[in-house]
């Protein structure tokens, strides 16, 4: 074993035994396009092996630019990116062979057949051919029947799956999905989520961007919010909902109110438009008002309750709030 082979071997061992903590480590990267457009500003981020990480952000936030920098489609203006411990610029052959990328657009050649284009990617990434693996991938994406069809004859959802098949063709350890479910119907979306969860079970690290925040809520372990090239926060999805989420208790009353009774008039209590319900907004961390406290308070006012509902804010609400707060600054 030569010295490079030896180092590789050690790194591999580290990864297997969990010593190599991060699959991807991004250190202070910035990207400036022409005309001084700052697409990324001083981003630092660590991604653990085997996690599903969702990158959220409005149009033009820099999500694609961040992914492109990691995959080698563009070069960061400054900063360092390491994939599995290797520098993406110096050791690009090692880092890129670990990565599969599903791009946002449909950059496919029209007259290519499905199976040929998938085989092409596998070869391009340095893997020798493996027809049974390709067959498995195509079957899992319901493309096997379409394998000889030219790309031009496929629907948008099928093309999306072809791109996924290409990305998986070389058995990557990391999969990037740039808006995998845009323009995809409900059933296929569900199937994609299942596929991503299945990949995670096999130990694949998945990084996805999405505008559809429900998606992040459904499958992500951690969430990062990007806006105008800056990473506003990175948090475990559950923590994020716990920290920023709000619970709203809505109490429907028998009688119509003119105003909120003095006894319960607090900062986070609102009257509904039809004046038949009162909303109590309960933050998950701050005032710990419980459901029974609320009922007790209402009982004290002498009002009679018709119905009680509780709703929790979704990741979407949290996302919108964080972006709005940032824009206010």
């Amino acid at each position, binding site marked *: 074993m030569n010295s490079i082979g030896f180092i590789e071997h050690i790194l591999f061992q580290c990864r297997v035994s969990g010593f190599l903590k991060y699959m991807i480590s991004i250190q202070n990267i910035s990207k400036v396009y022409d005309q001084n457009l700052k697409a990324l500003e001083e981003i630092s981020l660590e991604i653990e092996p085997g996690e599903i990480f969702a990158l959220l952000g409005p149009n033009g936030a820099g999500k694609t630019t961040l992914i492109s920098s990691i995959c080698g489609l563009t070069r960061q203006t400054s900063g360092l990116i390491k994939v599995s411990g290797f520098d993406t610029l110096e050791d690009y052959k090692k880092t890129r062979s670990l990565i599969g*990328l599903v791009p946002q657009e449909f950059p*496919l050649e029209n007259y290519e057949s499905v199976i*040929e284009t998938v085989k*092409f990617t596998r*070869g*391009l990434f340095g893997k020798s051919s493996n027809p049974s693996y390709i067959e498995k991938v195509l079957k899992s994406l319901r493309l096997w029947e379409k394998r000889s069809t030219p790309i031009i004859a496929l629907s948008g959802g099928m093309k999306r799956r072809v791109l996924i098949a290409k990305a998986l063709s070389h058995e990557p350890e990391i999969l990037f999905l740039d808006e995998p479910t845009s323009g995809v119907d409900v059933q296929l979306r569900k199937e994609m989520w299942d596929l991503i969860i299945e990949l995670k079970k096999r130990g694949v690290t998945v990084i996805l961007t999405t505008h559809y925040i429900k998606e992040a809520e459904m499958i992500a372990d951690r969430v990062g919010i990007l806006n105008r090239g800056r990473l506003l926060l990175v948090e475990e999805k559950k923590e994020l909902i716990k920290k920023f989420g709000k619970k709203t208790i809505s109490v429907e009353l028998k009688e119509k109110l003119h105003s909120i009774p003095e006894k319960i008039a607090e900062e986070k209590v609102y009257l509904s438009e039809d004046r038949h319900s009162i909303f109590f907004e309960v933050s998950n961390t701050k005032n710990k008002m419980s459901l029974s406290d609320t009922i007790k308070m209402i009982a004290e006012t002498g009002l009679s309750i018709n119905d009680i509902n509780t709703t929790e804010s979704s990741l979407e609400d949290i996302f919108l709030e964080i972006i709005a707060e940032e824009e206010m600054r």
Partner: protein
Amino acid sequence: MNFNSIKSIYKFEMARALRTIMQSILAPVVSTCLYFIVFGAAIGSKISELDGISYGAFIIPGLMMLSVMTTSVNYAAFGIYLPKYTGSIYEVMSAPISAFEVIIGYVGAAATKSILISFLILLTATAFVSFDIRHPIWMLVLLIMTGSTFSLFGFIIGLWASNWERLQLIPLIVITPLVFLGGSFYSTSMLPGFWQTITKLNPIFYIINGFRWSFFGTSDVPIGVSIFFMAAFLLLCIAVVSIIFRTGYKIRN
């Protein structure tokens, strides 16, 4: 060296030609026949011999060179331009493959295709005239060198081109005139003095003449000069390509 990656690009590019196999085969065969009818039969009947060679045979190396040079440039330019145009270049850029390996794949495929086509022309020509090839090894060497060099040149054009028009421009206004005026169909001795001088400023003239020498053992210039021009052009293309890749010109922003 990443052979699987190179093989993948090479095969992909060869398959592109196979998809339009009829056109790939028919076009050179038909145009060769036309050249022989027009130049060989019609004009050639007026010119009995050139440097002791029948006119029909004289134009064979010229035709092959014309074909190798133009198809190499076109195939290679198109081969790299199309993925740029469709966006599928993203794959090549995100693949664990060096610029050098990418070039070998694309340029190798373009050169192979153009050389195969020139053999098709040679084969078609046997139906019209009989001839011997004096130095077959040299012929092959020169053919491969020309095919590779012009494919590399085409690759550069494909990288540089930002629209279809630009892609066509250089082959149309530079390559085709230089090849036609480089003595594909005539010997310089047929030209008046002034035009002889002009022709000698054309680098392609030397390449075509060297190739003709490999067929008949005679030519307007010594073979060494021909090889020199060929190598110089090859080195120039290599230099340009390495500058392009060092600066990430036009692909990676």
